[in-house]
C-alpha cells in the first residue's frame, strides 16, 4: 500500500494538515525519532542510504555459507535468521510502536501450525494434515497468522503500556495450553513431525545452503521492509504515537487503527519467520510456542537492542551461539540459568542491549566530547 493510501486510510483531514505542517516545520522533511533524524526514503534515493557497513554485512552474509561448514550454515546461520526475523517483529512493535508484545512467537507458531495442518506432515498425522500444495499452505498460513495478529492487537491495544505485556503473555500462554490440550486440530502434546521445506524448481530447500539463502532473502526483505516502513508516513505516525499518544490523537490521527495496523504488519513478519522456523525445525508442537520460546524471543530482541532493526538479528546470533555452545561452558541442562543471567545483566546494565552498549563504547572512545558524530 502506498504512503498516500495509508494517510487516507488512517488519518482524517486534520491529521493530514498537521502532518504537512509538522514535516515542513522540521525543515527538509525530517522528523526526529529517538536520537537521529530520519529522512524519508523513496526508491530513487534508496541507494544513497546504503553505507559501507551495509555492504560489508551483506557481502559477509552472502559469502558465509561458502566458507562455513553446513552445520554452521544451517544450525547457526539459518536459525539465527529465522529467529531474528520473528524478533524483528517484536522490535518493530516494541521499539517503534511502544507496545511490547509477547505473543509474536504465538503468531509465528500459528503460521507454523498452518504449514503443518494445510500442508504435509508425517504419516501418523495424515488424518489432520490436508496435504495441499506447499505454496497454498504457506499463503493461507501467513494470512491466518496475520489475521490472528491483528486480533491480538485489537485485544491488547484496548489497554496501554505495561498492560500490553500482561495481555499478550496471557494470550501466548493460553495458545500454548490450547495446543497442548487439543488433539483434533493441533494434535496435542506430540504436535506435527516431518514438516519439511519443499523442493522448488529442482532445488531442495531442506539442504543447508538453499535454506540459508531462503532465510537470508526473507530476513533482508523483512529488514528493509521495516526500514522503509519507519520512514513512511505510517511509521512516523507510529513513532509519534509511541512518544505521545494523546497528542497524536488530538492531531487527528486514529491511534487505535495505527496500533492495530502495526500489530498486523508485525504479524506478517512474524508469520514469515514462523514458516522459516517450522521448516528449520522440521516439526512443530506446543513446545515451539511455550513460555520458554515466548521469553526467548523477548530475550533476543532485548539482547540485540530495540533501537534499530538490526538489533534482533544481532541478538539472535548471540542467542543461538550461546544455545549451541553453552554445553562447552556449563552443563547443557543449565542453559536457562545462563541465558537468564545474561538477560538480567543486559536489562540491568545496558537497557538498549548490545547496540546500546556498542554506542556507549563508541561515544566514550571515539568522540571525547560526547554525542557529536
Amino acid at each position, binding site marked *: 500500500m502506498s504512503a498516500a493510501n495509508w494517510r487516507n486510510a488512517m488519518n482524517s483531514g486534520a491529521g493530514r494538515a498537521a502532518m504537512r505542517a509538522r514535516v515542513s516545520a522540521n525543515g527538509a522533511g525530517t522528523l526526529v525519532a529517538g536520537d537521529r533524524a530520519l529522512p524519508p526514503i523513496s526508491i530513487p534515493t534508496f541507494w544513497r542510504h546504503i553505507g559501507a557497513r551495509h555492504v560489508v554485512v551483506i557481502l559477509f552474509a552472502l559469502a558465509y555459507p561458502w566458507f562455513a561448514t553446513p552445520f554452521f550454515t544451517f544450525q547457526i546461520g539459518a536459525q539465527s535468521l529465522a529467529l531474528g526475523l520473528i524478533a524483528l517483529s517484536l522490535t518493530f512493535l516494541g521499539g517503534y510502536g511502544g507496545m*511490547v508484545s509477547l505473543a509474536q512467537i504465538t503468531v509465528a507458531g500459528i503460521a507454523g501450525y498452518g504449514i503443518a495442518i494445510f500442508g504435509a506432515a508425517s504419516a501418523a498425522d495424515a488424518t489432520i494434515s490436508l496435504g495441499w500444495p506447499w505454496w497454498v499452505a504457506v499463503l493461507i498460513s501467513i494470512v491466518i497468522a496475520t489475521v490472528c495478529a491483528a486480533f491480538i492487537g485489537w*485485544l*491488547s491495544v*484496548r*489497554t*496501554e*503500556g*505495561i*498492560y500490553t*505485556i*500482561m*495481555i499478550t*503473555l*496471557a*494470550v501466548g*500462554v*493460553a495458545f500454548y*495450553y*490450547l495446543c497442548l*490440550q*487439543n*488433539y*483434533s486440530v493441533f494434535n496435542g502434546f506430540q504436535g506435527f513431525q516431518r514438516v519439511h521445506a519443499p523442493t522448488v524448481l529442482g532445488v531442495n530447500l531442506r539442504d543447508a545452503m538453499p535454506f540459508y539463502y531462503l532465510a537470508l532473502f526473507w530476513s533482508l526483505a523483512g529488514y528493509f521492509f521495516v526500514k522503509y516502513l519507519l520512514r513512511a508516513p505510517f511509521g512516523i505516525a507510529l513513532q509519534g504515537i509511541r512518544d505521545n499518544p494523546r497528542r497524536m490523537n488530538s492531531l487527528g490521527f486514529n491511534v487505535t487503527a495505527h496500533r492495530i495496523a502495526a500489530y498486523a504488519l508485525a504479524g506478517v513478519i512474524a508469520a514469515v519467520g514462523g514458516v522459516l522456523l517450522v521448516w528449520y525445525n522440521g516439526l512443530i508442537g506446543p513446545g515451539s510456542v*511455550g*513460555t520458554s520460546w515466548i*521469553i526467548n524471543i*523477548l530475550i533476543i530482541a*532485548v539482547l540485540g537492542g530495540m533501537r534499530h532493526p538490526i538489533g534482533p538479528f544481532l541478538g539472535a546470533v548471540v542467542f543461538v551461539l550461546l544455545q549451541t555452545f553453552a554445553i562447552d561452558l556449563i552443563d547443557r*541442562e*543449565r542453559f*536457562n*540459568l545462563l*541465558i*537468564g*543471567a545474561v*538477560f*538480567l545483566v543486559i*536489562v*540491568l546494565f545496558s*537497557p538498549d542491549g548490545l547496540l546500546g552498549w556498542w554506542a556507549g563504547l563508541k561515544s566514550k572512545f571515539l568522540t571525547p566530547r560526547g554525542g557529536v558524530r
Partner: protein
Amino acid sequence: MRKSWKIFWTLVIGLPLIAFVVWGLWDNTRLFVVTFLNGMTLASLYFIVAAGFTLVFGLMRNVNLAHGSLYLLGGYLGFLVAQHTGWFVLALAAGFAGAALVGLLMQVSVFRFMPGEDLRQTLVTIALSIIIADLLLWWLGGTVHQADAPELLSGPLRDIPLIKAYSKYRLALLPIGIAIGVALWLFLNRTRVGMMIRAGVDDRAMLSAAGVNVNVLFAVTFAIGAGLAGFGGVIGAVELSMAPGEDVRLLLASLIVVIIGGMGSVVGAALGASILGLAETYGLAYAPTYSVVFTFVILALVLAFRPRGFLGRPA
C-alpha cells in the same frame, strides 16, 4: 454504556448461562455440583495467589512476572517442611516466609533502584523467573512433588446430600480463601499500613511528601504479595502438585484473574478468580479439549467491553 445495551448484553450472556445451569442440573446433578465445588476451591487458590500479584501491581505498578516462580518456591519449601516435620501449619508458614524473603530481596536489591521504569522492572522479573525456575529444577529435579494433606483434613467428607462425598481438604480451601480475603480487606482498610498502601495506590508522590517512607512501605507490600504467592504454593502443593511448569500455570491464572477482575483491586481478584476457576473446571468437565478456549473467550469479552476489568480503575 446505555441502559438498554446493558440489558441486552446481560440477556445475551446471562440467558445461555442460565440455560447451561438448568441443563447441567437436569442432565447430571452430581457432576454439576461437584464441578461447581471444584471450581470454587480452585478459585480460592487462584485468589490467594492473584491477590498478592494485584497488591504489588496496584501499589508499585510492578508487573511481577516472577510471581509464578515464587509460588513454585513456596510450594517446594512447604513440601520439604511438611515432609520433615509433619506439621502442615509450619509448612504454610515456611512457604509464606520463604517467598516473602525472596520478594523482599528482589525489591530491596533491584526494584528500588529503578522506580517508575515499568518495562525494565518487568523485564527484570522475567529474567528472575527464568533463573529461579532453573535453580529450583537444579535443586529438586523435574519430578512431581505432591504433599499430603494434614491429618485433620485428609480423606473425604461423607454423607453430603446430592454429591455423597467430597474431599475435606478441598472443602476447607473455601473458608481459607474467604478468611484470607477478609484478612486482607481488614488489613488494607482498618490498619495504618493498609491505609498507607491505599494512599500509595492513589498518589505515590503525595504519600511520600506527607512524610511516609515509601521505600519501606514498598518493601513490606512486596514481601506480603510474594508471601501470598508462597502461601498459595503450599496449598497448591497438596491440591494440585508441584512440578516445573506449574509456575507458568499459576502465572497465567494470576494474569487472567487480574485482567478480568481489574488490576490493583482485591475484591476484583476474588471476582476474577471465581470466574476463572469456574470457567476452567466446567470447561474441563464438559468440553475437555477446548477448556482453555472458554477462558480465552471470557478474557476477550472482558477486554472488549471493560478494558480495565470489572473493578479496575484508570491507572
